[in-house]
């Protein structure tokens, strides 16, 4: 895509906006429309757009396939770890009150971490799907 100036410039302009919008959806999921799932897809779409325009090699040097798999796993682990915090303190699974002393702050922190885990997993799954469309996933 080296000779296509317009797509390159527009992509450079638009990717920060996509990522910013993704982060907005991520952090406002707990009291407005959105959440980790939608944000993950939006952020992944920004990354995929970058890959399409500037080539897979650049993308892979930022985020290798093994790295996507690891981040995928870490996202789920974050979710379950928050859930288990409740069980460790003798409360129920996913009881956010266990996270902090103040139950309101605990609820806020809990939903934030859970959504973060979901976002991390979903965006990396999307990127991995994109990689495997390019035969890079190989034997997934």
């Amino acid at each position, binding site marked *: 895509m080296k000779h296509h100036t317009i797509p390159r410039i527009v992509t450079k302009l638009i990717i920060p906006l996509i990522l910013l919008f993704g982060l907005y959806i991520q952090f406002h999921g707990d009291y407005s429309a959105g959440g980790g799932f939608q944000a993950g897809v939006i952020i992944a779409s920004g990354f995929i757009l970058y890959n399409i325009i500037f080539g897979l090699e650049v993308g892979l040097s930022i985020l290798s396939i093994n790295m996507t798999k690891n981040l995928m*796993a870490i*996202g789920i*682990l974050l979710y379950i770890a928050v*859930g288990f915090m*409740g*069980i460790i303190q003798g409360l*129920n699974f996913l009881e956010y009150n266990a996270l902090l002393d103040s139950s309101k702050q605990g609820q806020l922190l809990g939903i934030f971490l859970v959504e973060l885990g979901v976002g991390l997993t979903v965006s990396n799954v999307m990127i991995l799907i994109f990689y495997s469309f390019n035969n890079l996933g190989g*034997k*997934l």
Partner: protein
Amino acid sequence: MNQIPILIITLPLLLTPILLLIRKINIVYVLTLVISLINIILILTLGIEVYNNGNIIYELGGWPAPIGIRLNADLLSCYFLTFINVMSFLCLVSSKNIIKHQIHEDNLYLFYIAWLLCNIGFSGIVLTDDIFNLFVFLEISSLSSYFLISQANYKGSLLAAIQYLFIGSIGAVFILLAIGILYAHTGTLNMHDLAMKIGQAKFSKSIIFSLGLLLAGIGIKSALFPLHGWLIKTYAYAPSIVTTYFSGTSTKIGIYILLRVFLDILNSISPLEYYKLAQFILFISLLGVLLSTFYAVKQQEVKKMLAYSSVAQLGYIIIAIMLLIPDGLTASLIHVVNHSIIKTGLFLIIAIIFINNQNVMIEDLSGLGKKYPILMSCFVVLGFGLIGLPITSGFISKWYLVTAMLKSEYWYFTFIVLLTSFMTLFYVWALIEKIYFATNNNSSAVNNISIYQIFCVITLTIMTIYLGLETSLTSGIAQNISSDFYRIIEK
């Protein structure tokens, strides 16, 4: 103690991302086995607790019922949980040598992760008290089972997985749409709440529509007769250990959803009596039992023969439920467990002996009686269980089925059940004849069979004989469950 229901689901779920980070097949295998064993111990403790003190309800996040999501472990859940997890464990123990020959080695760790996820899905379906979560867990188990099926390096595996994906997705969408309609009518997704509110809701055509959708969706999942096509293909083309695992669990989950939805959640509107639905399913299943037994007799391929026989046996289970009397439900619950054990054992022996073959023809079994005396005597015992000869558990389930039918208004169908049982003898005998009385020996059967695999087969055989002699375990619990169900219905 009160955390056990959630631990059964979340401990394997906690392990899966860790396994994805480890990626060393040996460690993955050992950890999978350990977590399955821990799960079985947890389930047995839960089962004993529930049997003595009644059902345990677990509120996720500490939110109370209609708003929050609950898990509900009652006797029916524990009954299904126990045998599903035991089957999963036995298959996992004997899977090591088998899948090395059938699956690409880079994918082995993913195979075990998908297996765990599939089992989490099954456990979740059985434990949840939220009808939408039931759908979610159904999707978890289905998606991972598509992966499991597609992994074999046989020619038709991918095609079989894709076909199952399409059919399974259609079934899942039907169930989702039906849940949506029920939600629109009652405004709740909690099963207990729904069971109460559905009786007060105005009965309209859309509820009937949702009943039809539910029946079609569950029918696909449990391989109800005209919707059983995917099962034959899947069983023939999946990696043989996956076939073994699914033969004992996957369709039984369909039966569980059928029981839970039609006899528990919706029973205040008695859905099975509308348009004589129960009678309709009964006739169709009888036809299914007859036809699939015919097909099984005709088959030359052992896996397909056993798959058709599975369809026939599932037909018996559904017939027993559709009699709509307590004895029928008891018979179906007994047969669910007994058939699961017998069919898993038969498929397991085939999977152990024929590692490299995709198509195991009847001729391939010739002369194996001398080569593998222990395995083959187990095969014969399990085969007798399939027919329903005395001292095997198959006899007990046939006995309860026939007694239940004689007590019901459809006593004249007993004839067909007995006829098909007799026909089972033909195809089982065709196998036994080849095993013991044919002389030509072929080389496609392998020699290195590990002691663990033989241990698993013998465990299943002993279970079959034990449940045939000591019936209080299955029939006692089954009678408890069915009397519970029908007490609810009479109220």
